């Protein structure tokens, strides 16, 4: 499989950033701590010959005892694919923003912030993207309680001057 | 031949009959009565034109874009506009809270009254101009220029940003296009030595001016389209960008007045084109003059609708380029060529 060459590179990178490499259904997954995410992604972007330089997707996942930011990396110049998972502390969900590497992370990080409350440090405009600004709670977290509309009464109040 | 003449002059005969009811057919009271009747006729023309044209527009739209168009109410959907007009009358009349009420309310009335004023000088047949003005073309253009003000009033009075943008666009567009419009007509005026529309029609007895002034006709049609805000120059009411421009906040009959005004203006511009370039009521018998006139107007209106439903909307900077860099030089060139032609003609004919 073409994963062979990539796997070598990923393992080398994993050693640098204290990450662990798995292979799930034909795809390499690199798990790192949140603090290493910029280093990891920069490393993945500059793999020799097979750079994973296209941020395909970024999403949050609730792992019950921790949160994850999942980066799907691909390339426009080859079949290589890599999934980077950054483990984030649930109590203090802070991670570095990757908007400095890919501008395309802008909306995606806002969405992850909106849905999981992950704070992306260094994001230019970290606001809720789908829900309204004064919405409380993070809907896609497992501990979010979905109540009927009558109970929650989510009626948006209009802020003066809007 | 007598019967034909009778049909040709049927309106004149009726007018004479009404005048003969008075002791002195040319007394002040007789003139006043005739003026009132003329006025009513022009109002009827504007309203009827709107009613018919709206339906026609939708039919043409259907035909151009390969769909049926209105086809439910009455035979082949012919009553659709009447139903729509009734519905409009039943609508609630809303004035926005922050609107400048006086300006907001008076703007549609001005727009509606303008085509009536302009249509009053058009000769509909031999001797059938409601008002026979010596400065006919001049009057026509002066009056139609007022509609710019009305659009700005509507745009400003509505207290809506879309309306304001639309109003500003109206100023930019209509003032720019007034100049080529005016200049394109000057060639004809130079040839006939008269502003009177009746005289201009008489002068086209042998050859309509479209053959002598083809460039002027093309410029007139383009500038006229822009002047009445028809696509591809409908930036004022561009629904994809400024929702409906100055009309955004209007409802019910006030909005209907804008509509009447729009179609009335369209009729007026087409009527002027038919008069100045296509020979007005002149045409080979056995068709009466006033039928000829309306047929010519109809052709121009059809062309306008056809263009509207085919072309996409032009961009505002392209619009300005077209007016100032293409149409204006061309119209000046046309005036120059006409002058040269007249000079040579006189030289050759020894006049």
């Amino acid at each position, binding site marked *: 499989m073409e994963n062979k060459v990539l796997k070598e590179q990923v393992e080398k990178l994993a050693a640098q950033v204290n990450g662990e490499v798995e292979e*799930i*259904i034909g*795809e390499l*997954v690199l798990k790192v701590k949140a603090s290493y995410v910029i280093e990891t992604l920069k490393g993945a972007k500059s793999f020799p010959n097979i750079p994973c*330089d*296209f*941020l*395909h*997707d970024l*999403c949050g*996942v609730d792992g019950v005892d921790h949160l994850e930011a*999942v980066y*799907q990396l691909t390339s*426009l110049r080859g*079949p290589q694919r890599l*999934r980077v998972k950054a483990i984030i502390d649930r109590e203090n969900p802070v991670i570095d923003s990757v908007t400095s590497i*890919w*501008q*395309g*992370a802008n*909306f*995606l990080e806002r*969405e992850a912030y909106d*849905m999981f409350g992950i704070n992306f440090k260094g994001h230019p405009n970290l606001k809720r*993207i*789908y*829900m*309204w600004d004064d919405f409380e709670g993070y*809907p*896609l977290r497992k501990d979010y309680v*979905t109540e009927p509309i009558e109970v929650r009464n989510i009626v948006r109040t209009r802020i003066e001057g809007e | 031949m007598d019967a034909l003449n009778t049909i040709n002059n049927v309106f004149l005969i009726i007018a004479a009959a009404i005048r003969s009811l008075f002791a002195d057919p040319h007394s002040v009271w007789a003139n006043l009565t005739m003026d009132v009747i003329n006025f009513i006729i022009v109002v009827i023309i504007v309203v009827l034109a709107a009613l018919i044209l709206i339906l026609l527009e939708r039919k043409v739209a259907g035909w*151009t*874009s*390969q*769909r049926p168009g209105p086809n439910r109410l009455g035979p082949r959907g012919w009553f659709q506009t009447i139903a729509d007009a009734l519905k409009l009358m039943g609508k609630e009349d809303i004035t926005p809270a922050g609107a400048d009420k006086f300006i907001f309310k008076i703007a549609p009335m001005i727009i509606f009254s303008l085509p009536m004023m302009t249509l009053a000088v058009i000769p509909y047949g031999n001797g059938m101009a409601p008002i026979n003005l010596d400065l006919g073309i001049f009057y026509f253009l002066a009056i139609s220029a007022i509609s710019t003000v009305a659009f700005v009033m509507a745009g400003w009075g509505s207290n809506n*940003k*879309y309306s*304001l*943008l639309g109003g500003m*666009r109206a100023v930019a567009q209509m003032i720019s296009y007034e100049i080529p419009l005016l200049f394109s007509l000057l060639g004809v005026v130079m040839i006939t030595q008269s502003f009177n529309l009746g005289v201009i029609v008489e002068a086209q007895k042998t050859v309509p001016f479209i053959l002598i002034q083809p460039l002027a006709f093309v410029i007139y049609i383009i500038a006229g389209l822009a002047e009445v805000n028809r*696509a*591809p120059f*409908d*930036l004022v009411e*561009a*629904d*994809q*960008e*400024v*929702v409906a421009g100055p009309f955004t906040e209007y409802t019910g009959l006030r909005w209907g007045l804008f509509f009447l005004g729009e179609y009335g203006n369209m009729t007026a511009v087409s009527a002027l084109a038919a008069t100045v370039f296509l020979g007005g009521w002149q045409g080979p018998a056995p068709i009466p003059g006033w039928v000829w006139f309306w047929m010519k107007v109809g052709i121009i209106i059809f062309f306008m609708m056809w263009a509207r*439903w*085919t*072309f*996409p*909307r*032009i*961009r*505002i*900077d*392209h619009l300005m380029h077209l007016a100032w860099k293409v149409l204006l030089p061309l119209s000046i060139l046309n005036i120059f060529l006409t002058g040269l032609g007249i000079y040579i003609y006189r030289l050759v004919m020894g006049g």
Partner: protein
Amino acid sequence: MTIEKTEELLLNMGPQHPSMHGLFRMVVNLEGETVTKIDPKMGYLHRGIEKLAESRTYSQFIPYTDRLDYLASPHNNWAYVQTVEKLMGLEIPERAEYLRVIFGELARIASHQVCIASTALDMAGWSAWSYAFRDRERICDMYEMTAGSRLTVNNMRIGGMSNEPPAEFWPALKSFLDDTPEMLEEYNGIFFGNEIAQGRLKSVGILSKELAENLSITGPCLRASGVNYDVRKAEPYSIYDRFDFNVPVRYGCDSYDRTIIRMDEIVESVKIIKQAVRDIPEGPIMAKVPKVIKPPVGEVYHRVENPKGELGFYIVSDGTTKPARLRIRAGTFINLQMLPIVSLGWKIQDVVAIFATLDAVLGEVDK
């Protein structure tokens, strides 16, 4: 003496606006007619599909995917069911694969027709709009024959297809494919060949190749910026490796190329469907699938080339009948990031046109 200066006009376009393609809202700063800043706002159509997925079984979720990019619903079904099949390791019958390709490519044609139509409509080209919609009707008719619905088709299941197309489907498909060159000629004549349309689209809203890659743009917008990348070629899913087709690429990077590249793609789609119709084998259309779908613990990411961009599904399974996390990578949501960047300095009319060429469907953007 106070110095008078012009003020910027803050214009709020949408969510109720004729050219906002659904419920999109953008706050535009205007200097006269020129745009100085755009702030896109979305979420007016947010239904929380990702959250809903966590309380639905795997099969129950299929109809929800129809409501993402509702103009190309077979693609959403396809992406989702393939992701689940990949997770479960299911093999699906040949005939079902071919049918999926046929429906997917039909959806691509329909979606591109809507894009062309709505771009024309946003520039007031009414007739071009109705021409394209007239032809799209025929695809909707074919959907209706097969699945009973005209927009949200929902005829793919985990393990195959829900039903066989009826006998009258095949002649309708054939006549549609035969008529496509004529249709494209008509669109060219009424819209793309028009001087005004070209003046409004050409060299407007330049999205450079580097910017496109940096912004994670996918789909026709990326290919119109000169990048030859199509998931169907780069990482062939389903049976795309069996067909002979080209990936159209354009190098203009402007609104015009972003629109007309869809015409090229329609040509290629027709080519693919013709090959699929020629090669389709007889056989079952549904694999042996357990009654209760219970994928093993694991996670999978799968993407397909949706007409508007790459559509990806990322499913984390905890071994139960419901997904622990289902993530939708919506192409147009990410493509929309280019709007505030490329439309700076253009007129408000151009912004409307640029937004149309992005071909954003708010069902997918808002999820």
